[in-house]
């Protein structure tokens, strides 16, 4: 009899020991940070937001850590159902309601959700362009202007975009870059050097509408230009080593 009681006690003790850590984990030790999350944001808060909305059945997309349109509509539906002002912003009140209504834990998210997600797995890209477009342009920019200041690199990317939009040039980024004789870096193979992060940033800036050149279609390095014709173009400005013209 005593033995049995002893056994019961040990069992209870073991059970308690086992329960305590589980209970500790299940408490939401981490939750949203203080920021107001809005469309376009990237990061762990967005993963939490998407996971909670997914838990409640509002969000049906992938938990990728990027606050896009899908997340936006899901959040607005949630706000509407829970009687919150429908603004598509995850502010303090909305987050509070979300935390109450749903279960999520950052540290165990990997184990519990079907699609294990703790890292951001996507990125924003300028509308209408793919990452590979950016990569290809970054290659061209790096090959053409890697020694130039940052705005000189944005400028080269802007010229590529201006050409795509112009009637006298091919209508695609690849068409413009690979037009024979258009860029020296393509002709001598320097386009295949690995571009650095700076040239990628420059390309994204240019795709987002930054044009330091003032609508230039051509540029040349006055020290090395062999064509006489290029000097006849009306010049807009000089950036770094390059002169940009119409």
């Amino acid at each position: 009899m005593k033995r049995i009681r002893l056994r019961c006690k040990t069992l209870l003790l073991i059970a308690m020991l086992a329960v305590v850590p589980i209970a500790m984990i299940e408490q939401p030790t981490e939750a949203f940070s203080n920021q107001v999350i809005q469309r376009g944001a990237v990061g762990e808060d967005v993963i939490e937001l998407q996971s909670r909305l997914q838990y409640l059945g509002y969000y049906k997309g992938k938990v990728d850590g990027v606050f896009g349109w899908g997340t936006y509509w899901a959040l607005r539906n949630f706000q509407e159902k829970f009687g919150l002002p429908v603004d598509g912003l995850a502010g303090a009140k909305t987050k509070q309601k979300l935390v109450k209504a749903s279960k999520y834990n950052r540290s165990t998210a990997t184990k519990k959700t079907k699609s294990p997600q703790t890292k951001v797995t996507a990125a924003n890209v300028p509308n209408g362009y793919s990452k590979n477009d950016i990569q290809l342009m970054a290659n061209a920019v790096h090959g053409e202007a890697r020694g130039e200041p940052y705005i000189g690199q944005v400028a080269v990317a802007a010229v590529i975009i201006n050409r795509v939009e112009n009637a006298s040039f091919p209508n695609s980024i690849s068409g413009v870059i690979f037009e024979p004789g258009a860029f020296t870096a393509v002709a001598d193979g320097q386009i295949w050097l690995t571009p650095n992060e700076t040239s990628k940033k420059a390309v994204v800036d240019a795709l987002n509408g930054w044009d330091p050149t003032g609508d230039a279609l051509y540029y040349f390095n006055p020290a090395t230009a062999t064509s006489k014709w290029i000097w006849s173009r009306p010049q807009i400005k000089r950036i770094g080593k390059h002169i940009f013209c119409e």
Partner: protein
Amino acid sequence: MLRGIIIALLSIAVAGTGYWGYQEHREKNAILINAENTYQRAFHDLTFQMDLLHDKIGTSLAMNSRTSLSPALAEVWRITSEAQSDVGQLPLTLLPFNKTEELLTNIGEFTYRTAVRDLDKNPLSDQEYKTLESLYKQSGDIKRDLRQVQHLVLKNNLRWMDVEMALATGKEAADNTIIDGLKTVEKTVEGFAENDFGPAAFGMKKNNNGFKYLKGNQITKEHAVTMLKKTVPNIKETEIRVTKNGKGSENSFFSVNMTSKVNGSEATMDITKKGGYPIWFIFSREMGKQKLSLNEAEKKALAFLRENKFEDIELLDSVQYDTAGTFTYVGNKEGVRIYPDTLKVKVGLDNGGIIGFSGEDYLKSHHQRASFEPGIQESEALTKVNPNVAIKEKRLAVMLNKLGEEVLCYEFTGTLGKDTYRIFINANNGEEEQVDRMDNIEANF
């Protein structure tokens, strides 16, 4: 004995080198021929497409039935695009061959516009018929010139690689039939009087009317420098350079550049001479860890815009790239979104400083607009939208249509499946002006 060995070794070396050289030569030739063939294909293809183009325009002229005219024009449009792609593959960038490509674009745009139109309701006007006739003649001229070049190329066995060499060295080759021939083509196109493509010619040029709406007094260099200093207060030990725009520029502006001697940070801002508005600004510096949310950064962006006298705007979109937030603002007048008045501001999420600004579109198009009065009701416009789209937001908006004109539209934002769309219905005639699929997220590979 030793002499015999040396002689044997040397002759083997000579033979080996010779063989190696021969291999190299063969490889080089193979590559040259390969490149040459690509050019030849593009050129012969171009002449073929021009032939076809001439032919098809001719056929469409003779057509009486409106129903068969649309497909014929669509065919012409398709051929121009193929011909353009061929031009893009020829080594012609250094030659002034732009006019031909421009003509192709214009034919393409003209035929596209007429092909998609409902020709039963809105048949070709006399003016448009005349345009088509003159296009027929012009494409015939180009076709003839190109045929001539093609004939010479085939007869004299001319090679495009030689053209490229001639262009690269800047020397006029003794026999540059191709260049001369193509220059003739270009001259032929230039000779065409400005074609009358009807009331709404190609859109791109319309947009470019400079900063004609700007108000205010001329500013001084010093004022421009102060503006940049105010935007980047933290940059240290700088060298300041101010330049004026070149003669080829349509607008007059100061370009102010500040480069730090300490860490290479560099800030550049172009400022209009009239009124002193920033046109664009980029501050390139080392970025720290993210400390601000996108939402907090937006307040900084808005403060910057207010400070620089940009008014009547609303936030359209916010996007985070790494540790920078990019905010897009559009004009807003009486609750109507003005898309042509677009502004972009980039804020560093590490310290909330402004690191980029682009306001060229706004400066070019912002002006006092008359009140907006839609010709049709919102409910009527809604009937023009695909019923499968679940509409979430509605509003009035001014946008640029395909011809580059400002039109008042009903803007409907809605979802279809997983995608979000923005649909613009003309508020005067109910036409569907544009449908945009909002897609700016891509999964990492």
